């Protein structure tokens, strides 16, 4: 096949333009979900557990009586437990509570170690789980530096007291964690914890969108992340 210089240049130009257009479309329409926790707002109600209750009810998370079998998607931890690298013992940060949940890392170690690809990274940034595929090897639990994952040591069903029929339960021998409410995002609703917070301390949004409330909050206030030095790229931001 003979190709003239003119048609070669035209084909190359069209190819380059198409590639650029695809990247531009991805940059404009792309999503990168993240959450910011306003610790000052969260501290206003020290005994509030509404986000935890809402999340655990919506997702049929069992209330295990024995702490060794505990299953949790979101929890309130004292600051020095959530941020163990915070060595300054006189830091005012120590008084603040920290909501801990899956960090939906940019570079998630749990995804890398999962032998069945039951845990995977979605294009919108969510580290999702396919419980159908989980074989319960718990490599992901060993890999996660945040302890965001729980294992079902027992059949969880007897310990789900107020079940939500629209969401499945899990079985014994399956790992589970926060899904960033991907099932609710699919229908245009915010995550259950964000909706339940009376102080609006949890801000959920799209980091790929420069005008989103979360981007504005992160641009205007100091924030930290849990163990960023590990290179996992956690996407939960704690606004001080």
């Amino acid at each position: 096949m003979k190709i003239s210089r003119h048609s070669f240049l035209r084909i190359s130009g069209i190819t380059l333009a198409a590639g650029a257009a695809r990247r531009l479309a991805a940059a404009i329409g792309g999503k990168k979900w993240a959450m910011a926790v306003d610790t000052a707002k969260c501290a206003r109600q020290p005994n509030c557990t509404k986000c935890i209750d809402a999340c655990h009810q919506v997702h049929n998370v069992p209330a295990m009586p024995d702490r060794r079998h505990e299953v949790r998607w979101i929890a309130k931890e004292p600051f020095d437990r959530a941020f163990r690298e915070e060595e300054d013992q006189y830091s005012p940060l120590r008084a603040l509570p920290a909501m801990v949940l899956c960090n939906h890392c940019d570079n998630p170690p749990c995804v890398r170690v999962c032998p069945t690809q039951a845990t995977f990274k979605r294009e919108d940034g969510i580290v999702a789980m396919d419980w159908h595929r989980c074989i319960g090897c718990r490599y992901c639990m060993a890999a996660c530096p945040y302890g965001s994952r729980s294992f079902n040591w027992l059949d969880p069903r007897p310990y789900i007291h107020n079940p939500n029929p629209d969401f499945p339960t899990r079985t014994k021998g399956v790992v589970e964690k926060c899904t960033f409410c991907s099932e609710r995002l699919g229908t245009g609703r915010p995550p259950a914890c964000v909706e339940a917070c009376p102080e609006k301390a949890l801000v959920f949004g799209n980091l790929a969108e420069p005008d989103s409330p979360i981007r504005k909050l992160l641009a205007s206030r100091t924030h930290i992340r849990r163990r960023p030095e590990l290179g996992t790229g956690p996407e939960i931001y704690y606004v001080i």
Partner: protein
Amino acid sequence: MRNRGLIWSGLALFLIFLTLPVWHNLSAGVTAKGPQPVLPKTEKQCVAPLDFMKTSHMTLLMNWRESVVREGGREYTSADGRHYTMDLTVTCLRECHTAKADFCDRCHNYAAVSLPCWDCHLDSKNVLGSKP
């Protein structure tokens, strides 16, 4: 034929033993009619044609599962252009097959197929603790 009585009664016992499965099935009410699942009263049309659903509903559900869990696509468009949300509990069970025991279980029990679906997914009637 001095032992006529013994021979005939032995033969009769042997025949009874030979036809035991028939008597067992008759007493258990097993018929050649099949499992007879109860069809929904409100809807006449499933998400796909009946013949396809009979043979390949498991493939369809598996494709739905892949789509929802891994690709984030929740809407299913049937061949005749109708739209459905891909959801076993909400679309299949709540809107049509309201009693899992009268629909899914009838065939699966008949064919001795035990499924893990209900270990996690909830049946809208018997919310927790329904095993196949």
